[in-house]
């Protein structure tokens, strides 16, 4: 281990101090990477400032397409957050040692994704200064009637769980202590159920609206899970690949192999369900199929989503097939481009491809196209950059502490043997 990454002392203050020092030190490329993220965030802040002053009129949303790019990204990122469970479950329940070593990265990715989710909701609010009306006690949370109130509870709960567990483990390791399982394992098991909950509840948000035939589909919840468990581990593989290639931390091939298996199985289930949905919409097209027709083929000359959805589904299928064939048997990093393909395919399909057609045609049969305005795109990319920054700044110190703790343990066992 490099000398600059040494633990300086004990207690919470030196813990925070070390983390800040480690986060800020690094090579030129690392510094440029951070600066780039901050620059995009600043563009996002500027765009949000405009939106805050003039209202959501600076977006391309309308009374017909009343949710757009923000909610599309929110929906997709909930899946990414939920996917951490695909590492937590084998690591803690099936005691998988390989995945246990990288489970913390999964948890940190979940934290980043959840922060992005909550920010996407916040920027979508017409009246963000009144967001306190949602807080029980000082405001009113319409629970259990409103599915949105359920979503707020499960998202914040999951964020708390996924912040507490890794924090406790890393903080213990920082002090060279073995974390007390009794203190964190119960939360781990809660978080496993909770991960399914955040995704099912988010699906129910749409599924529970008879007004929107395109969403009012009982397959939505299960399909959310399947696509999330493909896209999430795909992203985690890419993050691990980046850590493996660009830092001194070594990620074992076995981890990538296991992740590939999870991704392939989930992606295949996802495609089966997609096929089932497409069959229902197009074998006997009804009035309720008009959204799907709009999405896949365009309706009355409006076709803003057609090329997107075909691109998305192609990426989805190609990515799945490549990962199935597994060209990276010897070097798992070769599979990563396919994981990227799959990730972006699901992003398109589950983001814009799911949210926008729900509104088109309108309940009165009117059709408009929607493409996000530059303000929406800037704010969205600002939030995505912020999420990536959060993940980077959390993963780096966590990995340093974990490695140092591992080394200490190895030395201790060596001492016992000699």
């Amino acid at each position, binding site marked *: 281990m490099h000398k600059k990454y040494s633990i300086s002392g004990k207690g919470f203050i030196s813990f925070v101090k070390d983390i800040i020092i480690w986060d800020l030190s690094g090579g030129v490329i690392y510094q440029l990477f951070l600066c780039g993220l901050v620059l995009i965030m600043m563009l996002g802040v500027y765009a949000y*400032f405009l939106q805050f002053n003039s209202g959501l009129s600076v977006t391309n949303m309308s009374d017909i397409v009343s949710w757009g790019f923000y909610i599309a990204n929110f929906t997709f990122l909930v899946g990414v957050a939920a996917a951490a469970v695909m590492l937590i479950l084998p690591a803690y329940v099936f005691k998988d040692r390989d995945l246990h070593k990288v489970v913390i990265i999964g948890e940190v990715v979940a934290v980043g994704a959840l922060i992005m989710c909550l920010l996407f909701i916040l920027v979508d609010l017409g*009246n963000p*200064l009144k967001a306190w009306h*949602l807080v029980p006690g000082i405001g009113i949370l319409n629970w259990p009637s409103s599915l949105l109130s359920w979503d707020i509870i499960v998202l914040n709960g999951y964020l708390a769980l996924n912040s507490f567990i890794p924090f406790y483990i890393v903080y213990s390791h920082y002090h060279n202590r073995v974390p007390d399982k009794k203190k964190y394992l119960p939360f781990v098991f809660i978080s496993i159920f909770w991960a399914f909950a955040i995704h099912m509840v988010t699906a129910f948000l749409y599924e529970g609206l008879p007004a929107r035939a395109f969403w009012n589909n009982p397959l939505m919840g299960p399909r959310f899970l399947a696509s999330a468990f493909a896209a999430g581990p795909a992203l985690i593989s890419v993050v691990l690949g980046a850590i493996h290639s660009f830092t001194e931390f070594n990620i074992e091939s076995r981890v990538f192999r296991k992740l590939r298996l999870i991704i392939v199985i989930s992606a295949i289930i996802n495609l089966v369900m997609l096929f089932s949905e497409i069959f229902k919409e197009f074998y006997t097209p009804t009035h309720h199929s008009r959204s799907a027709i709009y999405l896949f083929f365009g309706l009355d000359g409006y076709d803003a989503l057609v090329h997107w959805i075909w691109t998305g589904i192609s990426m989805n299928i190609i990515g799945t097939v490549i990962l199935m064939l597994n060209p990276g048997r010897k070097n798992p990093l070769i599979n990563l481009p396919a994981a990227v393909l799959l990730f972006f395919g699901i992003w398109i399909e589950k983001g814009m491809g799911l949210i926008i057609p729900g509104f088109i045609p309108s309940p009165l049969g009117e059709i408009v196209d929607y493409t996000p305005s530059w303000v929406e795109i800037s704010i969205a990319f600002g939030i995505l950059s912020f999420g990536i920054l959060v993940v980077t700044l959390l993963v780096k110190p966590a990995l340093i502490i974990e490695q140092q703790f591992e080394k200490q343990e190895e030395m201790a066992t060596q001492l016992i043997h000699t």
Partner: protein
Amino acid sequence: MDVFKNRLKEKPFGRRAFLKRFAMAAALSSSASATGCIGLLQNDDRFQLKWKEYFKNNYRLMTPQEKEETVERLERLAQIEKHVDIQMSSKSPVDGVLFGYAFNLTRCEGFMECVTACVKENNLDRQTHTQYIRIFEMEPGGMSPETGDGKYFHEVPVDHHFYMGVQCFHCENAPCVRACPTKATWKEPDGIVVVDYDWCIGCRYCMAACPYYGRRFNWGAPKVPNNEMTQKQHYLGNRIRPKGTMEKCTFCVQRTRAGRLPACVEACPTGARVFGNLLDPDSEIRFVLKHKKVFRLKEDLATDPKFWYFVD
């Protein structure tokens, strides 16, 4: 800052008030430049009004006195900010009244006088041409507005066509009410589905939940010229809505609770619109329901609208 300190000294406050003030301080500091905080502090009167308005409760939880106070504040704010004298009411529903509406498809000829009257009466945004009422020009052979043309712009009535008006149907089992995460929209005892514009956070979940396109959003700050503004307003009705909140048809609550007809009914030149008290056996609406063949839109969704269509 003295303003803050003095106010803090004035009276001790509990946890709830403290949290509220804390939230306000956070909100203010984060948006100081955006809301023109310095300007607010200079105009102490306006600042006080805005401050109290920001922390007021959901309308349904207000005492009659609190309702009166907020109405007064809003009247004064309209004076200070827009230089208009408005008279705002907070009149409660009348006992024994449940409003219902019926639309005569034979009579309507698509003149859209109702739309014009509605825009004027309800102070709807002139910039984005917000309309609560949509009129669809329909070809024979269908009864769903999806098959009609909602954007016609030509001389009416056109031969072999009929006209169908659509607005908020004030469902008894309203999906929007169930969806709202803050209880900012609800069904009043007289059956009107209303929005507390100052409690709405603008998430637009109700809009996604409405199967009738009955709700509208203020994407920007609504613009209504002073000389065109209807000054007799109701807190839950036609007052000028803040930016970023939902609004919708309220059966002209400001008129109907005072015993008048909604503006659309009054304006209709052909008498196609019928409005009245469903609990009054002698009302015109009850006559229509008893003697005409009526139907409602999308009855399969079990929303139970209080808006019926009929033919002569």
